């Protein structure tokens, strides 16, 4: 029996449901703060629906990620400007929102925690390693290795040449291999 093709709106809903979690994680790797990452994903979804919903479904992946990356870059620029103003007005040391260092210490005394701790260590280390990567390398790596995009699609999302994508990706892989040497052999 032949399957009924999805309604355009239904297809759009399925597409967004499939990408929303990974989009959130990508934004979180870039901006660290979860609330900011959620704002970025919300913006990206609305802009995508307004601008590209009528485009063929085969193009949605590239277009959504281009929108998402553009929102992330916008956020980073705004934050840079805001931080510059804060430095000028002498509020650079204002760390009310910073994390309590006690909260970041691992609880090694919990019973039966070894396996969970190991698992948590890998995830946390990977997250940390992705956060310290330069943003272009992180973009290239996540789009190629996680989203499974080819070089041409990644170049289209990042707005650069295919050669640059290859360079960024290769550097990212080597940097991550070095950073995660003990955890992910």
């Amino acid at each position, binding site marked *: 029996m032949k399957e009924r093709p999805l309604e355009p709106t239904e297809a*759009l809903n399925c597409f967004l449901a499939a990408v929303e979690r990974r989009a959130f994680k990508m934004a979180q790797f870039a901006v660290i703060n979860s609330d900011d990452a959620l704002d970025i994903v919300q913006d990206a979804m609305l802009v995508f629906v307004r601008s590209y919903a009528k485009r063929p479904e085969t193009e949605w992946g590239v277009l959504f990620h281009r929108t998402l990356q553009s929102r992330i870059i916008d956020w980073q620029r705004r934050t840079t400007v805001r931080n510059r103003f804060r430095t000028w007005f002498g509020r650079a040391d204002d760390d009310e929102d910073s994390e309590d260092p006690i909260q970041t210490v691992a609880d090694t005394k919990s019973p039966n925690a070894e396996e969970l701790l190991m698992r948590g260590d890998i995830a946390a280390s990977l997250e940390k390693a992705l956060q310290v990567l330069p943003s272009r390398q992180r973009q290239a790596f996540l789009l190629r290795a996680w989203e499974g995009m080819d070089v041409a699609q990644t170049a289209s999302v990042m707005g650069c040449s295919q050669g640059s994508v290859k360079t960024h990706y290769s550097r990212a892989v080597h940097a991550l291999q070095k950073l995660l040497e003990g955890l992910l052999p």
Partner: protein
Amino acid sequence: MNNSIDGQEKAFLEKVKRELDAAADDLDTLTLARLRSFRMRAMDEAERRKRIRFIIPRWLTAGGIATVCAMVVAVSIWFGTKQNLPTNHPEDLEILAAQEQLDLYKDLDFYTWLASADNDR
């Protein structure tokens, strides 16, 4: 040698991908709920845009805007040229066509009085 490096890299990438997938699957309930609400909002927006497109087809809006623009230009040219001509007051046309300074016409009463005073003398 090269093959073993490629193999190592492939295995490394597989593990990273697995970890990333796990991290995306393990999102907390609150984050998932917020993502869902954003998606619903985006879908509402898509529906709204679809309804607007249905009510006013694109060809009609483009044609309509072009027609309105053409009509505005035509009406402004027609009435603009008609109203600017001072046909009801031919003496004004004479003043406008003259090469004299406008100040002369502003002080015309004074010069008329001066001429009549000279004549009386």
